C-alpha cells in the first residue's frame, strides 16, 4: 500500500516538483555559487602557475627539428598537418602525454571543481583538425554520483560521446581512446 502511495506521488502537480527542485536555488545556492566562484578562481590561478613551467619546456621533434614552447593546440595542429601517418600517430601520442602532464586534472579530486548541475572542468583537444571539448560533470548533491565525462565538437556543440566513471576520477587515456574511436 505504501508503494502505491509512493507511486501515486509521481503524478503530483508539476508546480510542487519545480518548487522543491528550485528551492535550493532560491535560498542556498547563491552562497554556494560564491564559494564555488572563489574556488574556481583559485583553481584557475593554480593551474596557470602549474602550466607556466611545463608548457615552456614542451618539445616535439620532426626530422631533427625541436619545437620549443609549443602548446597543446600547436602540437595538435602539427599532427593534423602532417601527411605522414606514422608521424601522425607519434604526434597523437605526444598530445595525449602532454595533456596528461599539463592541462586535464584527470587524477585530481574532482569534488573541489564540481557543483550540482554545473559543468566542472572544460578541456579542448584537437583530433584531425577538429576541436573537441571535453566536459566533466558531477552532481555532488548525490552520494556516490558518477563523474560524467562528455565530448562535444567545440564549434557546433554537437554531442559525440559520453562515459560515466565511478568515484571522482576518470582515466584520460581511456576516454581519449573512446573519443578517437567515435570520430574515426
Amino acid at each position, binding site marked *: 500500500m*505504501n508503494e*502505491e502511495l509512493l507511486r501515486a506521488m*509521481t503524478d503530483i502537480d508539476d508546480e*510542487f*516538483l*519545480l518548487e522543491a527542485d528550485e528551492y535550493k536555488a532560491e535560498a*542556498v545556492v547563491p552562497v554556494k555559487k560564491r564559494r564555488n566562484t572563489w574556488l574556481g578562481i583559485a583553481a584557475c590561478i593554480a593551474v596557470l602557475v602549474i602550466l607556466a613551467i611545463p608548457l615552456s619546456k614542451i618539445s616535439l621533434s620532426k626530422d631533427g627539428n625541436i619545437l620549443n614552447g609549443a602548446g597543446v593546440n600547436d602540437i595538435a595542429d602539427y599532427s593534423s598537418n602532417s601527411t605522414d601517418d606514422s608521424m601522425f600517430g607519434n604526434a597523437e601520442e605526444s598530445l595525449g602525454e602532454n595533456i596528461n602532464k599539463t592541462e586535464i586534472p584527470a587524477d585530481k579530486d574532482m569534488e573541489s571543481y564540481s557543483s550540482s548541475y554545473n*559543468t566542472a572542468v572544460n578541456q579542448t583537444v584537437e583530433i584531425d583538425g577538429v576541436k573537441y571539448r571535453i566536459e566533466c560533470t558531477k*552532481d555532488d548533491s*548525490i552520494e556516490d554520483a558518477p563523474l560524467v565525462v562528455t565530448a562535444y565538437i567545440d564549434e557546433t556543440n554537437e554531442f559525440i560521446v559520453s562515459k560515466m566513471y565511478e568515484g571522482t576520477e576518470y582515466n584520460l587515456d581511456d576516454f581519449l581512446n573512446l573519443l578517437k574511436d567515435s570520430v574515426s
Partner: protein
Amino acid sequence: MRKVEDRQIVILYLNRSESAILETKTKYGQYILKIAMNILGNVSDSSECENDTYLSTWNSIPPKEPENLKSYVGKISRNLALDLYRKKHAEKRGGNTDVLLSELEDCVPDKTENFSDVNLTELLNSFLKDQNKDKRVMFVKRYWYGESISDIAKEMGFSESKVATTLHRTRESLKEYLEKEGVSV
C-alpha cells in the same frame, strides 16, 4: 553550455528529429540521473533508467506535447526507476527506497479498503496545497526526489532533526487527511 528552450526541444520531438534526445540529455540528463540514482542507488541501473527515459520520451511525444518538459521527463524517470527497483528487488530488500517505503507506512490508514479506487494523486495534491511551503518542499524532496534527510537539511538550511521531525509530523497529518477523506473505513 548552450541551453535550448523546452518548447524548442518538444518541437524537435514533434518533428521526429533525433537531436531532441541529445538536447534533452544535455539539459536534463543530470536531473534524470539524479532521480534514478536516489531510487536505485547504483550507476549502471540508473544509467539504464536514464536511457529508457529518453526512449520513452521519444515514443510518447507525439502524441503528448508536455508544457513542462523537465517535470515530464522527471516523472518518466521516476516511474521507470520504481519499475526497475521492483523488478530487481523482488526478493532482495535494503536501500534508500525501502527506507522511504517504511516511512510512508506512517501515512497509510490503519484500515484501508478500495485504496485503488481512490484517486490518491488528487488527494496528495490537495494535501500538499494546504501545507506551508517549507513542509511541502521537504515532503516532495524526500518522497518524490528520494533525497536523504541530511541533504535536505543542507539545502534548506535546517538541522537534520528539524527535517526528520517535520517529515514525521507531515506523515501523520497525511494519514489523518487520508482517513478524513474516506480512504479508511
